[in-house]
């Protein structure tokens, strides 16, 4: 084949490849890239209560700085995020170790363990709403059986955040566990054999060998959960709508309500862009951390 013909064939192949990814790229630009640019523009607009639109400059952003609800929402978002992430990572690693030592996992057991995060978060919210009912719920009955005081759970401004974190952790801890289990199964068995010969205790082996080797996998799980936890929406919207009062009003819930209940599209856009920046910031930070713990 001559050089010219080879180049022609290569060009043709390149063109065909572009044609293959074109639908996905065009769709994504139309549905995501363009709308996000549009949101940036909306963030500089003011929408009056009559629906009239006018240029507002940075007014939406200066409003955000002085908006008590924004700072409160940021605090709720971060509190819920940290609490849920810690719960899910700690119990996820524990559950992964338990599953790992069980060796043989029948398919039915595995199906059982993935069932919480395969069901819609909305359904999880519905069922926990009934279980956690302050006066007739099964949860308080269990507490009282063990001689513990009942709780108002989702109806208590103090306990609503831990309760929501608990519901989300019930749903997603098995997911973290399965990721960590994957990491455990890919560890070279030779490191354990060496530790066994050295007579290291199981706890020491875990602390000195397993945990450091698992860190990259744990950070990966943390990234995947961070993305979801920072934009927490479904369970809260179904159970409390941000209440009682504004006790569980995360930034995502607040932005949604500003946009679709008060129809202040401009301010909602500014709120959502800020939240998006926070999510991307967290992902970047964790990515760096993953680089630091890689082996």
């Amino acid at each position: 084949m001559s050089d010219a013909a080879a180049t022609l064939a290569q060009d043709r192949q390149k063109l065909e490849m572009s044609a293959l990814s074109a639908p996905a790229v065009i769709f994504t630009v139309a549905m995501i890239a363009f709308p996000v640019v549009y949101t940036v523009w909306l963030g500089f607009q003011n929408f009056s209560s009559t629906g009239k639109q006018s240029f507002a400059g940075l007014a939406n952003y200066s409003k955000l700085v002085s908006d008590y609800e924004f700072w409160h929402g940021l605090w709720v978002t971060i509190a819920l995020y940290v609490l849920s992430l810690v719960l899910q990572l700690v119990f996820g690693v524990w559950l992964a170790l338990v599953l790992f030592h069980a060796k043989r996992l029948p398919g039915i057991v595995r199906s059982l363990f993935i069932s919480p995060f395969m069901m819609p978060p909305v359904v999880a919210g519905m069922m926990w709403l009934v279980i956690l009912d302050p006066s007739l719920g099964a949860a308080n009955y269990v507490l009282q059986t063990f001689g513990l005081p009942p709780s108002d759970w989702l109806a208590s401004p103090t306990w609503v955040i831990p309760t929501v974190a608990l519901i989300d952790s019930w749903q997603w801890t098995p997911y973290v566990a399965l990721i960590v289990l994957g990491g455990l199964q890919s560890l070279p068995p030779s490191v354990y054999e060496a530790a066994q010969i050295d007579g290291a205790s199981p706890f020491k082996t875990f602390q000195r060998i397993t945990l450091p080797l698992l860190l990259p996998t744990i950070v990966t799980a943390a990234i995947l959960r961070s993305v979801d936890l920072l934009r927490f929406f479904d369970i809260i919207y179904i159970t409390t709508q941000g209440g009682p009062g504004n006790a569980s009003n995360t930034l995502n819930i607040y932005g949604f309500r500003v946009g679709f209940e008060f129809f202040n599209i401009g301010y909602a856009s500014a709120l959502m862009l800020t939240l998006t920046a926070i999510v991307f910031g967290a992902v970047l930070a964790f990515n760096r951390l993953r680089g630091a713990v890689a082996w």
Partner: protein
Amino acid sequence: MTDAANTDRWIRWLNLVQLVLAGIIIMAPTVWMVLSSFKPSFEVTAYPPALIFTPTLENYVELTRTTPFLSYALNSLIVTVGSTALGLLFGIPAAFAVSWTRISWPAILTLAARMAPGTLFLLPWYVMFRQVGMIGSYTALILSHAVITLPIVIWVLLPSFDGIPRSVFEAAQVDGCSVTRILWRIALPLVASGVAVSAILAFVFSWNYFLFALVLSNGDTKTLIAAAFNFIGEGSTQWGALMAAATLIALPPLVLAALVQRWLVSGLTLGAVKG
């Protein structure tokens, strides 16, 4: 028996106890939901909660009688199947091209939807769909849900395509096969199981998605998940019907997930972990 063997047995017992404990915590709420859905109305709210009761279907009958549950279910099915099909249609060729050329930005671009909060897209969509009168249309719902399904299809299929030896393609190329032909005739049959897993995962996450339908649907096109809110509003005294609704909504994703549980983990992490 030696000390070591004794310790070993003891550790295995301890592990089993922990496994059972975890299983109970994971299963109990779901079991409670299903049990409550079969309780007669006076026993659902009984306190202390009743564990033994005569099961009845009255909650399910009540649900279909008092709410348009079946038409919501049909809406969910239309939106989910439509968005899954669209995700496969766009995602399969894109995943193939990314795997072949190693040019990964198209795949990474679609991931943006996985990271940003849904409301970020929903605000401009709402403004745009309203301008063209598409709020409440199946088209708007299917397009918005395809934003969820497309990255799932691409990222689940990428490792499958990567797993095909290059020589297979090169041989076909020498025979004069076009790239498109190679994809449909040679590559696709080789990754059929990957396509099945990606389709099921896309279906599950599209079915489960709440936010978009909450705003973009109307009374006629409301999906089950978006309608869940109505069941709660009406059901504060009707826990039985509420739990019947929750059970039925959760059933399709749970059944599908059980079918492919073995291959789910690597798919769920979008390739971040090789499970």
